[in-house]
């Protein structure tokens, strides 16, 4: 443990330097140096993000899009520049295609209510997959309940991959939208979303991609994917909580009416009629999360500076090492052994409940997630109630993989 952090030059990231940027990593948990492997739940924040948010409150704090005074102008510029940063990070063509939301969940609800709801009829279908997070299930169930539409689900294989043949069959003339997760939070599976979008588009069906677990782990290019909507959260990508964004093709956003009304989303209001602002502001009712937006932009700039390919290479190395070594432990079974995985290692151990593993690892200073990961249908698919999930970020090291494996040995020692 006293050995120096292995600087992962092989993958091009200076991990020691990165770790120095994250104040929260430098603390003890239960008397041991903290090993933070719960990045799929939320990541720690670099100094650059914390400083950006602090700077806003110390210098530029004002509301956006209104006051004529200096601070309001600075706040507005910072907020709208953040939109441009997100546009660039996602490879979108136009900043007006980026809508700020509270996170992935709100982004999906926006699409469900403002895009799909007006065009869906009883008997129509919404197609999602068996590995969705609850955030890409429940909004559609609510919509189905309200409209008489039907929810269809693409099954997953024993390896934790989507059954693409079934997917192609389930795309029907009644399908009004496809909702698919880019990277599964519960299994780590990277889905072939580009291919899936092509298949849907061949039948004229729009596709929403849940990118919450994809944006932190590598390059995303919405124009290359040709997705209609792409949703993600800031806090899983080193940014603040309570902020995220929806990318939507301009032609779609222009057609959509807002489902939340209020200030800052209007052109003019009388008691007879309200004219909505143009997208994206039409969908941002109320004073937005200004510090969240600029903090998120700082986080994405941080990731850009590291380089998406280097981030992917580094995390893949950790994930592969952790997977291999975990499987060497008798009784450990991987949940989700897809050919392409990112970020998360999900597993169970014979005779020991994931919650007990979580508690024991915690006392060893290793923070992981034990539970259903807000993906209960995935758990039902594999006939389990929960898994242990270790998820990696840019600041994790091979030494921390060692600590994870040592802590799992401790579980074996206690439970026999």
């Amino acid at each position, binding site marked *: 443990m006293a050995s120096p952090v292995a600087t992962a030059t092989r993958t091009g990231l200076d991990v020691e330097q990165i770790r120095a940027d994250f104040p929260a990593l430098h603390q003890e948990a*239960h008397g041991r140096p903290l090993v933070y492997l719960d990045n799929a739940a939320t990541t720690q924040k670099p100094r650059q993000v914390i400083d950006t948010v602090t700077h806003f409150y110390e210098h530029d704090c004002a509301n956006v899009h209104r006051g004529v005074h200096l601070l309001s102008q600075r706040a507005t510029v910072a907020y709208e520049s953040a939109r441009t940063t997100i546009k660039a990070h996602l490879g979108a063509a136009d900043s007006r295609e980026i809508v700020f939301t509270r996170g992935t969940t709100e982004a999906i609800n926006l699409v469900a209510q403002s895009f799909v709801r007006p065009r869906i009829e009883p008997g129509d279908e919404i197609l999602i997959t068996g590995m969705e997070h609850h955030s890409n299930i429940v909004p559609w169930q609510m919509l189905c309940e309200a409209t008489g539409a039907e929810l269809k689900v693409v099954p997953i294989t024993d390896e934790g991959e989507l059954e693409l043949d079934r997917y192609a069959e389930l795309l029907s003339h009644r399908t009004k939208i496809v909702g698919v997760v880019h990277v599964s939070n519960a299994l780590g599976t990277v889905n072939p979303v580009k291919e899936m979008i092509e298949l849907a588009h061949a039948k004229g069906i729009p596709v929403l991609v849940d990118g919450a677990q994809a944006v932190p782990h590598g390059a995303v290019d919405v124009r290359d994917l040709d997705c209609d909507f792409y949703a993600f959260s800031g806090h899983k990508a080193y940014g603040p909580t309570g902020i995220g964004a929806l990318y939507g093709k301009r032609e779609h956003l222009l057609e959509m009416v807002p489902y939340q009304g209020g200030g800052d989303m209007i052109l003019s209001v009388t008691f007879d009629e309200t004219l909505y602002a143009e997208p994206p502001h039409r969908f941002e009712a109320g004073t937005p999360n200004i510090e969240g937006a600029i903090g998120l932009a700082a986080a994405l700039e941080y990731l850009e500076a590291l380089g998406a390919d280097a981030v992917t290479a580094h995390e893949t190395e950790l994930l592969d090492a952790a997977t291999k070594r975990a499987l060497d432990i008798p009784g450990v079974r991987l949940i989700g052994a897809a050919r392409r995985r990112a970020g998360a290692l999900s597993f169970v151990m014979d*005779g*020991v*409940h*994931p*919650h*007990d593993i979580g*508690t*024991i690892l915690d*006392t060893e200073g290793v923070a992981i997630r*034990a*539970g*259903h990961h807000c993906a*209960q249908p995935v*758990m039902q698919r594999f006939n389990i*109630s*929960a898994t242990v999930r270790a998820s990696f970020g840019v600041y994790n090291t091979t030494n921390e993989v060692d600590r994870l494996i040592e802590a799992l040995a*401790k579980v074996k020692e*206690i*439970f*026999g």
Partner: protein
Amino acid sequence: MSEIKQLYQEVILDHNKQPRNCYVMDCANKSADGHNPLCGDTVKVYLRIEDGVIEEISFQGAGCAICTASTSLMTESVTGKNVEEAKNLFDEFHHMLTGVADEQGVELGKLQVFEGVREYPVRVKCATLAWHTLNAAMNSNSDPVTTE
């Protein structure tokens, strides 16, 4: 004893591995389902109560070691007790887990092994799920209870 071994005492590990009274009771006259949404664990408690006395108790389900062992030990602790006594035992048990001072002086006996759970606030619900479910069964509440 290390902090973690204080939590996972031998008695708990034993009851987790070989839970007592773990079966479906055909002649039960009361039962209830319990659910811990945090971890997805579920437990069903069966009771045969005669003249206000718990003559027989069994369960199915449970999940983590704390939950399973707590359910198993609960069944042993309340067998032969009347409903009032079982409720008092739950109160006392709950007080121990939440650090509230002992006011009633009810003997916890073997249940004392769960004292270590107090150091792990998120796990208190694992230890109390069975008791909440027992309470629901005794009250003939047919709705599933949750720890929330």
